[in-house]
């Protein structure tokens, strides 16, 4: 078993290609199925760490403050994301509560923490404990973080309620908007390219 380093394989159709060295920002696509095979992520990396840190901060804000406040004939009601999850649990449908908890809080948070850990500069970058395991976790989590879908859900719910009550958007709503924009950049980064970064560090 030995490595063939000058060839590369498309992970979606198995076609073999000669490896090309890509300039900054260039993307290599498979000529057979059109899949994105490789990307020079050097430049992206510089933005990634600050963006991850900023996302973490905004993520905390988005979860502490209420998303929305409702006023109905003098009666007030407000909820945070966690509050909504908890009231689903008391409703007895803990399966759905778990699903919401995982896709909007747990998985995005884990993604950000892992990315932060992997990107933070260290003295021995080639010897980071758990590197390959964490990249595997990142790849598994990738389809399941759904902050942007949640934001659309909030907007739909607000419009639905605005017919029957007065709606006051909370701080967390704006935080979720910002978070969606930032996570689009952070999470769209394919964890596979972290290997490429690791190699260039060595």
């Amino acid at each position, binding site marked *: *078993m030995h490595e063939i*380093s000058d060839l590369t*394989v498309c992970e979606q159709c*198995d076609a073999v290609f000669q490896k090309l060295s890509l300039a900054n920002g260039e*993307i290599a696509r498979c000529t057979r199925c059109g899949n994105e095979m490789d990307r020079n992520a050097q430049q992206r990396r510089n*933005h990634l760490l600050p963006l991850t840190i900023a996302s973490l901060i905004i993520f905390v804000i988005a979860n502490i403050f209420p998303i929305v406040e409702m006023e109905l004939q003098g009666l007030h009601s407000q909820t945070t994301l966690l509050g909504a999850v908890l009231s689903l649990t008391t409703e007895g449908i803990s399966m759905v509560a778990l699903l919401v908890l995982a896709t909007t809080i747990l998985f995005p948070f884990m993604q950000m923490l892992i990315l932060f850990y992997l990107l933070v500069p260290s003295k021995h970058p080639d010897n980071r404990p758990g590197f390959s395991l964490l990249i595997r976790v990142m790849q598994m989590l990738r389809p399941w973080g759904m902050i942007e879908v949640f934001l659309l859900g909030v907007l739909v*719910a607000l*419009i639905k309620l605005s017919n029957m009550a007065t709606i006051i958007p909370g701080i967390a709503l704006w935080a979720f908007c910002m978070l969606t924009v930032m996570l689009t950049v952070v999470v769209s980064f394919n964890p596979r390219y972290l290997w490429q970064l690791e190699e260039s560090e060595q």
Partner: protein
Amino acid sequence: MLNSYRNFATQDTADSTHFNTATGIGLLSCHQCGKLWKSAKQGDRCKHCNATLHTRKPDSINRTWALVIAACIMYIPANMMPVMITSTFFESHQDTILSGIIFFWVSGEWGLAAVVFIASFLVPLLKLASLFILLISAQQKSTWRQLERAKLYRMVELIGRWSMLDVFVVSLLVGLVQIQGFAQISAGVGIVAFGAVVVLTMLASISFDPRLIWDTANSHNDAQQTQPTDITNTGIARSPEKTLQERT
């Protein structure tokens, strides 16, 4: 340098016979880090990242079928059972996914009705249909529209998550409208089934191996006849729009 790579496959002959595959020439690629190994066996560990190597996702067709069928079964209660129960002083009414969409349409929120209709109704339906097409054509090792099917698969992966929309809407409304005795929204059984459909179809698209689209009968024969000296197909095609995507 870069222009010197030969390109055997032109756009009009982009069928599988013109490409050498890793499996065909006895190479194994690591799904994890993308390293390519010669004379490695199925089940070996990648020396670079320690992931298990395999030519195709294990048992892909069977697993995907199981998940798709389960999703189809759950699709019925997801659309028949109420997802949300609104109770006020005077009345209590139940909403299914479709009646929620109709409510938006009738009350004049056409844009919103369209968004929810697409995300909650159309996307799950199209996703199930796409997975059926992908599975059946892969089982028959069909050479029919392979490029389109590869694109279809990527599309399914990309849009599948958006059908979670209704789950989030219901969770938020349940969390917010809890004014005891006055107005209360609670979740119906339908939302559990609906969440299950979304999760099952997402798992199905993850367990489907897109390489099966290209594993046609003639691709293997052709690959075995190829001499190891000319194993590379082409240079990687450089995307014409790459300059637009350059800065992010």
